[in-house]
């Protein structure tokens, strides 16, 4: 296959940035999209050009490091996969493909396709945990958890923190990411004591980072590679309202 890539190039946060066109030949349909970028980077290096910077690590869809907007879609045209799992057989010979970073105000571009997602870590710091010190745990069977609750908690906990939800949202909201953690911990008996304070603190941090509000458009759910359902956002709203009804405690 021969493909034309139009790639966002930006030297650093201060640079304005631009799309640059590259023709890549000799692509096998079995190659992953990121392997095409690898191949192009080998060529650019030998030609004395700077290779294209992009994040990726596990390359099996679980670490959440990779994430590109491909032809306008976060993680590209296939549903329920991350960028690293996208293979060239999803494209046609001769295609022109636009490649851009995950854009949002809090996601500052570090270089080319690499953005700063440290705001996600700070949202977790604001209560995205259960406060239990090492050694203080009771026996694992002390509190039974209904099977369905455990499964619901797992479904929300499957979030990989990639940021596709933010990139897809017209409001630049991280509500799906936020709601995934609130729903995960809020579904479990261990998460109940801090349920209200967690929802309030994490939501405040989300807003403080500059993410927008949720207007239930649903683009986030459509691009989420792990299928996190929109209902986790309702859970956030319910927990925040519950907390306010308790006087914000």
């Amino acid at each position: 296959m021969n493909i034309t890539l139009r790639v966002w190039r930006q030297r650093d946060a201060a640079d304005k940035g631009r799309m640059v066109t590259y023709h890549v030949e000799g692509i096998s349909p079995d190659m992953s999209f990121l392997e095409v970028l690898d191949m192009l980077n080998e060529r650019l290096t030998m030609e004395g050009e700077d290779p294209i910077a992009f994040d990726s690590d596990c390359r099996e869809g679980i670490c959440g490091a990779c994430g590109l907007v491909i032809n306008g879609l976060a993680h590209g045209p296939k549903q329920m996969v991350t960028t690293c799992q996208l293979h060239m057989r999803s494209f046609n010979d001769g295609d022109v493909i636009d490649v851009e970073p995950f854009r949002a105000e809090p996601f500052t571009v570090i270089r080319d396709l690499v953005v700063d997602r440290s705001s996600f870590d700070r949202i977790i710091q604001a209560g995205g945990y259960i406060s239990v010190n090492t050694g203080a745990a009771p026996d694992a069977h002390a509190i039974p958890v209904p099977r369905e609750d455990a499964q619901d908690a797992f479904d929300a906990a499957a979030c990989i923190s990639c940021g596709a939800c933010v990139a897809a949202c017209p409001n630049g909201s991280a509500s799906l990411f936020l709601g995934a953690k609130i729903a995960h911990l809020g579904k479990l008996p261990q998460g109940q004591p801090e349920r209200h304070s967690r929802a309030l603190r994490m939501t405040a941090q989300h807003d403080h980072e500059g993410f927008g509000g949720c207007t239930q458009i649903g683009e986030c759910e459509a691009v989420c590679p792990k299928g996190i359902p929109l209902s986790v956002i309702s859970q956030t709203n319910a927990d925040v309202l519950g907390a306010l009804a308790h006087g914000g405690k």
Partner: protein
Amino acid sequence: MTITESTQSEYYTLGAPIADEKAPAGPINERWDTRRFEAKLVNPANRRKMSIIMVGTGLAGASAAATLGEAGYHVKTFCYQDSPRRAHSIAAQGGINAAKNYRNDGDSIERLFFDTVKGGDYRARESNVYRLSQVSVEIIDQCVAQGVPFAREYGGLLDNRSFGGVQVSRTFYARGQTGQQLLLGAYQAMERQIDAGTVEMFSRHEMLDLIVIDGRARGIVARDLVTGEIQTHMADAVVLASGGYGNVFFLSTNAMGSNVTATWKAHRKGAYFGNPCYTQIHPTCIPVSGANQSKLTLMSESLRNDGRIWVPKKAGDERRPQDIPEDERDYYLERRYPAFGNLVPRDVASRAAKAVCDEGRGVGPKVDGVARGVYLDFADAIARLGRDAVEAKYGNLFDMYEQITGENPYEMPMRIYPAVHYTMGGLWVDYDLQSTIPGLFVTGEANFSDHGANRLGASALMQGLADGYFVLPPTLAHYLADNSLDPVDENHPEARATKDAVVEQIDTLLSIDGERTVDSFHRELGEIMWEYCGMERTAEGLTKAIGQIRALREEFWRNVKVPGTNNEFNQSLERAGRVADFLELGELMCIDALHREESCGGHFRAEYQTEDGEALRDDENFAYVAAWEYTGAGAKPVLHKEDLEYEYVEMKQRSYK
């Protein structure tokens, strides 16, 4: 002169024996309690004044950082990824072992201990493995309390499954994403400490050297990967939880960034490297599809329960699998191992696949002229159980396979091939997890300690969390309480010299401006390692590999091309430093494999096998840990032997007949 003696004189020298002096004497089930009781404590008020550097934020690093932060120490944590939650522990699928005996099926701490020592082919330290089994029970409690959503039964209690051929069900799991959920538990506990101000996080930072002052680990030099700034961080102790080195093979199931730099730089500064040649090669991975492949993906081993493995009888048979009649297929595992068939142990299955592909009978696309794949066929299982039953059992794995290969395994047999998965070797540590450099501790896959020559399934997660949550915190506290350390700062001559050396190496890498990319060297090194230090090793091949690696390393430092500058986000530069270290490690792995004239676990020397092709150990001469001392670039390493004694488990030939 025997082979051993000639190898010794040419490739290494023999040093004084080494021994673990920290495990207390007495009955094995009391040793950890005794050690904890004898360990000195640090007054809570003093902890705030003590600082610890943690390199790596996977299970072993994040769990330790959280626990030490909770205790009140000042912890500085480093990871090369953009977030600590991306460490490669996250990719572990299967589960975590613990001797809870919730199934009442006869499990116990003793049985987990026994299984692990035997599984490691009698090359692990008994005291450490026993402690691991004891602590396993507490890990599950801790994770449940953190909100890890383990699989549960209808009654609300935790579910278990069996794993890797053991006779009990002791594996706890969270669908096929156990590593992810355990890591998020540890990550969240650590983020809580960041919020509390005890842990300071340095993401997108990479440790590039260890600072040793007066013989003690006192800090690191790290590069800020965004700005390129070279920083000096000082502390009272340093912990390396930086994972394994499987990426020396270029293609592996490790993450793209997984590397050996932290442990290798510590090795160069005096930490002995234990059993570097012990590598685990997993039989069921998706094969390489082309010359541009960047990494390999594991498919759960459970598929071998129902899939039948075969290749065509005739070499070069390029017919579609469904066009090859039954009597022209070779179900080679069933033929060679009628008792165990497709369920032979990992190492045997892996070697057999390599052998048939070497004969030209491999299937799938050719890479460099050879097809490296074998069929894993579910046609019989679908005929026997029905498609629905097969889908219920393996549906998610079939989907994943189809996503990567574009082939539907319900209609076409899967193609699989072995791949590098885990490294049992690592920095040598004593019972306290302290390396041969005082003040330098090593946890998780980065150390060598608990798996011997072969790791059992679902034991890596157990070890990472055991080290981080429960073992390291008391032993590290003892070190801090037992030693009065002079304050040092970044202007100490040793700190400055270390930083200068790091800057010099970066300048050199950037100035060579040769004709080959970093990746091309990495790929070539990987090919050498895979060919000669992979599934099957011989003295002849290893000798050849050492020569080739030396030549490649020499070329690297003369002909590598690293674009850009230091003062920017420069991924080529990051990789160049890592590959430079792999080029040194690879040679030591080959020397270790060459000197170990026996087969054990994941180390298979073709010259030493039983009539059935099983690993043939030589307990008389090789029941020891090989701890290697670095003596300088290109100089012969020194071998220190730690004799292994088995007081509780009887050494036997592993058998699966």
